[in-house]
């Protein structure tokens, strides 16, 4: 394998590869065209903390508008956080020198949902996959080509595919290309934003298995953004459930699926579709829709839809409590 010049001696200071502390992203809402003034803030991400361990997968689940995609953008440095820290190998990525930032950007890569729009239709596969290396690494062209071939083989394609254009591939194959590109810089972490939801059912299992195999081979961590709970159960080691910009429950995957605590998590589980017609599900059907993050409800943000809401839920913001080892939730019930 090609040596990666970016990968210096990995600092083993922190046990977690990545740590997020009280991260916030508030988008200003403006009124008026010329003399525009800020009339409020959309709190897309409002104080979240989590860790991602080396070689492990953290899943973030939640409905649209819960802030999971903004979280992904913050981690990819596509958005500047309003407050809070992102520590990567112990280093605060926003308060460090340019070379560290640069190495962070190449250590954290992304694979997006829709492989029809995430691959440039005018580039050949060799350039699509090779481009990150051309930009970031100072290595001879031949070495890059060899590595493109290796990556193609690793994701289950063949060397001759390097000469083709994206339109010559099926959806599953395109997602394989996107994964190969994500892996090209030997990243330590990949942000997977709904990586299988645009694919056909029989192809999804192929891609999920491939991602799991590559994780072992490349020792890469994943942040998986998904809404399909069964997919998250299959793919992840840890899960964070988000609602309106906050993490309401955070636990190891088995723990979360066997003993969900937060009413929102329970509602999500009961709303998810069963894998067999004989499976009896609790009928917690939430009424209404997710409130606007422009004007989130007072107290616990979930109280407007919660079947167990009490008087204090509307007033008091629940603290995050560790209910079992490694299992935290924010709810007045506990």
């Amino acid at each position, binding site marked *: 394998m090609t040596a990666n010049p970016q990968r210096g001696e990995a600092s083993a200071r922190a046990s977690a590869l990545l740590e997020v502390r009280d991260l916030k992203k508030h988008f200003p809402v403006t009124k008026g065209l010329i003399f525009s003034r800020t009339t409020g803030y959309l709190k897309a991400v409002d104080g979240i903390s989590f860790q991602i361990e080396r070689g492990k997968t953290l899943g973030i689940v939640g*409905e*649209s508008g819960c802030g999971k995609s903004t979280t992904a953008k913050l981690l990819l440095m596509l958005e500047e956080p309003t407050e809070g820290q992102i520590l990567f190998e112990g280093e605060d990525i926003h308060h460090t020198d340019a070379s560290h930032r640069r190495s962070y950007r190449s250590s954290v890569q992304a694979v997006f949902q829709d492989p029809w729009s995430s691959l440039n239709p005018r580039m050949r596969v060799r350039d699509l996959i090779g481009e990150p290396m051309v930009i970031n690494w100072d290595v001879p062209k031949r070495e890059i080509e060899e590595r493109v071939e290796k990556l193609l083989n690793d994701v289950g394609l063949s060397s001759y595919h390097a000469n083709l254009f994206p339109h010559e591939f*099926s959806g*599953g194959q395109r997602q394989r290309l996107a994964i190969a590109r994500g892996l090209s810089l030997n990243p330590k972490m990949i942000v997977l934003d709904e990586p299988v939801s645009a694919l*056909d*059912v*029989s*192809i*999804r*299992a*192929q891609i*999920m*298995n491939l991602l*799991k195999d590559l994780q072992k081979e490349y020792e890469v961590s994943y942040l998986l953004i998904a*809404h399909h*709970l*069964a*997919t998250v*159960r*299959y*793919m992840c080691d840890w899960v964070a459930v988000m609602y309106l910009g906050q993490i309401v429950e955070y636990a190891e995957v*088995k723990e979360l*699926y066997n003993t969900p605590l937060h009413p929102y998590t329970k*509602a*999500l*589980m*009961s*709303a*998810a*579709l*069963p*894998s*067999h*017609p*004989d*499976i009896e599900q609790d009928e917690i*059907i*939430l*009424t209404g*829709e*997710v409130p606007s993050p422009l004007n989130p409800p007072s107290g616990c943000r979930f109280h407007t839809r919660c079947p167990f809401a009490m008087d204090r839920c509307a007033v008091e913001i629940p603290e995050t409590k560790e209910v079992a080892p490694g299992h935290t939730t924010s709810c007045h019930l506990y």
Partner: protein
Amino acid sequence: MVSNGHTGDIVLEVEDLRTYFSTRWGTVKAVDGVSFDLRRGETLGIVGESGCGKSVTMLSLMRLIPMPPGEIVSGSIVLQGQDILQLTENEMSKVRGSQIALIIQDPMTSLNPVFTIGSQVNEAIQIHQDIPRRSILQQTLEVLRKVNIPAAETRVKDYPHQLSGGMRQRVVGAIGISCEPAVLIADEPTTSLDVTIQAQYLKLLKDLQQQQNLALIFITHDFGVVAKMCDRVAVMYAGRIVEMGNVREIFNSPSHPYTEALLASVPKLEEDVDRLFAIEGQPPALHDLPQGCAFADRCPHVMDRCREEYPAQFQVSATHNAACWRLA
């Protein structure tokens, strides 16, 4: 509760339906010999991947196939005793919406952005029901209340962009049921909705079905929807139904290798799966179908015979059949 044992009268009978498209690559046999029937109050799921012909089946049932390039080559679709393939276009437009209606996948594009939702719901009522103008509004409100639109009186004047995705989908549902059709086809009605909204919508459809004794056809790729909603299932692959049976028969003893593999490739919510079974390869191109079984190239049990001859339908039980030579 409408369950498996329920035997209402047959409202829809599809016999050997073939819908072909002529393209520059040759004839695409999108639907190639599909037969099924549907009883009142029953829910049939049609499952398959993209390109398996489930949507073309649905469009054929509505007679909405663009001709040319498409053509319903043969078969019959008997809806409440009348073969709708024999109807003229004028006669068909009276049937469409009043006897058989459709809920399309994407609520963002299936509503017209420049008309209020009220006018879009009452359009169907106006066309199909001979009632005075004044009571049309009443009926529109009633239909909107049926699909749980809150404050229907004010919502009728809203435009689609003023509603959330879940509400829009319910408006589309309201148009579907406005004339109390015998058969309602729902084409992936929940794919663009969030999980909790999806649960609300599926419950709504079940309630409506019971109220109006609707026969529902669910077009989906999601076995979860099938497990939750359907009484019977038809699994499609490359334009044909490869397996059909009661929902429990399909889940408990899938008899076609494709159904079996598909069920094994879906991660489960309720249990840990170490490694998913992945079906290798991809569905065949519809313009270049093999002579024998279309699944042969991906099938773990493939025999010589599979490549030579398309398998006949074999009975597994009185209500369960599959097209596979393994059952011969």
